């Protein structure tokens, strides 16, 4: 066993954090997922983006065993979610999108039960740390039904982390959480990522995904329409936009093909690379046009998102 392993490539020995192969799922007449293929490596900070109804939660639910795929294979750290469900579930912590709670119990009771379900008897130190990190310490003995929406969401995050899962999946963890706490929540999640936990998140706040995630998958109608590093997606899809104010206010013919609209006196040109900027300025100089104002606008994930969703 050992002797065989030492001859393999390192990437063959360490399994991917998440492996999804040809997953299909249908709800009645709705084809929620059609042939999803996705691999997330250990240690990644991964975003799963897409419009409402794209199938993000469905995919997460199937990965967590909350729903069953019609076909396809899924594994967490190499453990098949059906055949080896115990190991798979021990390896993953999921924050569900729905704000659910048990009206009978307090925050601390919920966290103790959740630890117990994962086979952990005495988890007080880690529960206390989770409460502290998620600013819930003074609510520890309050009934969850008495907490505000944002606090309930943070309890869900704490519940997902009781067993220190190597793979953490957060389905819109910041919906309804205020700005300050969102920042501290991300700081906490980022630290977990630095400690080696793999993070997968969905969010509709695209600036969050852009700031945090090194790789992005975009889902649309149950299909992966883009899968790349955040940096590549940004540069490949939306290029940059140049905003010009010129006298006389008339764009030279040679630049017409770059034009992407006009905003009053401002001409908008879309470029693929910064390198093209030089060419644009040269054309303007040769045509005797004077530049009064120039602005370079970088695209963000939102532009990429809108472009992909539209197409």
């Amino acid at each position, binding site marked *: 066993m050992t002797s065989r392993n030492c001859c393999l490539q390192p990437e063959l020995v360490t399994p991917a954090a998440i492996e999804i192969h040809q997953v299909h799922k249908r709800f009645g007449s709705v084809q929620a997922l059609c042939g999803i293929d996705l691999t997330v490596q250990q240690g990644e900070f991964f975003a799963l983006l897409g419009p409402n109804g794209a199938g993000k939660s469905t995919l997460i639910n199937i990965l967590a*065993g909350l729903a069953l795929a019609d076909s396809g294979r899924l594994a967490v750290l190499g453990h098949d979610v059906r055949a080896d469900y115990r190991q798979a579930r021990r390896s993953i912590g999921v924050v569900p999108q729905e704000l*659910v709670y048990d009206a*009978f119990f307090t925050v601390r009771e919920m966290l103790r*039960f959740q630890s*117990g*379900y994962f*086979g*952990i008897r005495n988890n007080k130190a880690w529960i206390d740390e989770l409460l502290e990190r998620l600013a819930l310490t003074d609510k520890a003995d309050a009934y969850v039904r008495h907490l505000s929406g944002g606090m309930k969401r943070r309890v869900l995050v704490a519940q997902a982390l009781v067993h220190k899962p190597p793979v953490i999946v957060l389905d819109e963890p910041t919906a309804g959480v205020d700005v300050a706490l969102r920042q501290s929540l991300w700081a906490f999640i980022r630290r977990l990522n630095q400690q080696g936990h793999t993070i997968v998140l969905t969010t509709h706040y695209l600036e969050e995904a852009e700031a945090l995630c090194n790789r992005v998958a975009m889902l649309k109608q149950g299909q992966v329409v883009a899968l790349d590093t955040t940096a590549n997606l940004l540069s490949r899809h939306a290029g940059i936009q140049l905003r010009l104010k010129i006298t006389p206010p008339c764009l030279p013919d040679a630049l017409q093909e770059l034009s992407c609209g006009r905003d009053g006196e401002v001409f908008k040109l879309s470029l693929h690379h910064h390198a093209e900027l030089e060419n644009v300025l040269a054309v303007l100089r040769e045509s005797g046009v004077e530049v009064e104002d120039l602005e370079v606008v970088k695209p963000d994930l939102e532009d990429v998102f809108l472009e992909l969703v539209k197409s």
Partner: protein
Amino acid sequence: MTGLLTLFYKELLRFWKVSLQTVLSPLVTTLLYLLIFSHVLESHVQVYSEVNYTAFLVPGLVMMAMLQNAFSNSSSSLIQSKMTGNIVFMLLPPLAYWEFFVAYVAASVARGAVVGLGVGLAGLWFVPLTLAHPLWMLAFAVLGCAILGAAGIIASLWADNYDQMAAVQNFIIVPLTFLSGVFYSIHSLPPFWQAVSHANPFFYLIDGFRYGFFGVSDVSPLLALTIVATCFLALSLATLLLLKSGYKLRK
């Protein structure tokens, strides 16, 4: 084992936290039955020659309360978790389907035992009771609660809303418990209804349970135990298969 024990403990704590509703209220209802029926029927109903009617009634009422509360416990807990969505907390961890089953059934037995003990002790105030065969009594009590605990799991898995759940309770469980010989010996029934009663598994539970107290019964306790144990095994198997398949839990 920790997962199973935690789930069991959570279920105990759940009914204990609302014990006014889950323990005290069935206790009061059952005692009202005892008060009224024993008063009205004492001199009219002939049961076993050597047992007076109130003494006959008490074990029947104890068993009825146990069965109904065992059913309520698993069914109301699960349907609430399903409807509010917090069932995910139990579906995400690596709990095996059989652990789920054992925890819910054990909690049902516990709730049944607490309510049954309460009714039994209160009954002593009305009439002195002796235990002829305590182990027989215990066997029927535990099997009865376990059967109803399992039935509660099946019903709450099947039901899509509280209304359907209430329908099972009111149209199946309550009639079956009432028509099982709690208030009368089936020997006092016309032959047709005697035959019908023999098709009701609850009849064997009550009859066998009563045997534990008086040492007399309508049918042989061994036959009753065999039928009851078979029911328990069949229902457990059905429940386990449903849980394993993820029926209405894992979409």
